[in-house]
């Protein structure tokens, strides 16, 4: 009996160990699932585009350029997915370090405001255009990718690429390229010109004036 008892003890010990290992594995799986829940960048772009298309098509106010609803919608759904700090850094290039932290913050805010204000109305075009995600180019795995899309619905499709970076808050867009032309790079010469003419404060003034505040 003692023999059997000992064997049973060993069996139970093994079983318990197995359970412990399983629970560890399970824990790991759950946690990695939680991580996988953050969508891949191409999925994110596809999902965002689909949500926006549905919203715009079902709400005429979102097709009305300049409406308050558009700016609300953009603030809530699109702005959080853009990394305005990185966008500003790229647009400023070498001049970024010439600005002190307070100025940097101000430029990021004002530039973000300018971009949001001027490009918000573009969502109205989703009324009769569809976004097709074509492919993803990985620059740094799990960190820096470019999602290539096409806007279709007109005779000539328009190629729009979104560069995204992965950070603590998930994937965020840091450049948009239309037919190969980078919107962030488009601001470089302007920023450089303003800084060389009238310094960082000149750039801030120009941005504020453009934003009307």
């Amino acid at each position, binding site marked *: 009996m003692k023999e059997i008892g000992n064997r049973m003890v060993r069996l139970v010990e093994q079983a318990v160990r197995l359970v412990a290992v399983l629970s560890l594995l*399970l824990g790991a799986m759950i946690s990695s699932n*939680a*991580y996988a829940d953050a969508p891949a960048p191409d999925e994110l772009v596809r999902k965002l585009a689909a949500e926006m298309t549905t919203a715009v098509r079902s709400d005429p106010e979102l097709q009305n350029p300049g409406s308050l609803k558009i700016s609300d919608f953009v603030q809530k759904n699109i702005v959080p997915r853009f990394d305005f700090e990185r966008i500003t850094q790229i647009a400023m*290039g*070498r001049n970024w370090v010439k600005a002190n932290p307070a100025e940097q913050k101000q430029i990021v805010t004002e530039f973000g405001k*300018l971009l949001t*204000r*001027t490009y918000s109305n573009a969502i109205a075009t989703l009324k009769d255009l569809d976004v097709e995600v074509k492919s993803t180019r990985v620059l740094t795995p799990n960190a820096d990718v470019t999602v290539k899309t096409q806007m279709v619905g007109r005779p000539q499709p328009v190629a729009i690429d979104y560069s995204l970076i992965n950070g603590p808050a998930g994937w965020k867009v840091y450049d948009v390229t239309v037919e190969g032309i980078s919107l962030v790079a488009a*601001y470089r010469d302007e920023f450089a010109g303003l800084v060389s003419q009238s310094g960082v404060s000149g750039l801030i003034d120009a941005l504020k004036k453009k934003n009307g505040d």
Partner: protein
Amino acid sequence: MKRIVPFILTIALLAPSLAAASPSKKVKPAPAPIPLEEPAEIAPPNDLFEPINRVTFAVNDGIDAILVNPLVAIWNGLMPSFVRTGVGNFFNNLDDVYVGVNHLLQGNGSRAGVDFERVAVNSTVGIGGLIDVGAKMGLQKVDGDFGQTLGVWGIPTGPYVILPLIGPSTLRETAGRSVRVMTDPRTYLDTVPSYSLMGLEYLQTRADAKANEGLIAASSLDRYVFIRNLYLQKRSLMLKSVQTPQ
């Protein structure tokens, strides 16, 4: 059996905390934000004639406001959109002949083949170029002109110039443009049909461009610099697209 109970209890108590502790180890930490690469010194664009260019730019703006915008508004108002699309396609079809010739001059026979195929299809099935049947067949229009060919041949871009009425260009593109005008059969028609055809193309081109002008004005701090940047990005891209084999 007595030995087992505490053992099970220990494990049972430990397991969840182990499992709970494991995520912090197993979760891939959100990657640290990638530091921007040391921003390269961006070569300022070659704008030797900036003072003159800015004057021409302003004059063009004036002509736009007084003459071109009203004409474009009348054109858009009078012509239903299918007519405007047809006119645009007609001139695109003529342009495709030039695009094809240039791709040949650049030594790119396969691209030229697509261009000429487009011309053949669009001139026949597409009723003299009014309908872009080629695009519907998957033969997309590609940019190409003499300025690009000169670039492929190694001629540098040269300084940025603003041409009267036409707008942004560079010395090289201007040279390319003159070749185009000199070899354009329309140049050698009688004055009235020649100017009417060129005027119509100009109007249609400007009408197409108007759609983006509001956005550019709204988003730029210095419109002159913004447009210069967009134009130079576009031209360098056009050159790169034929230089890198796809």
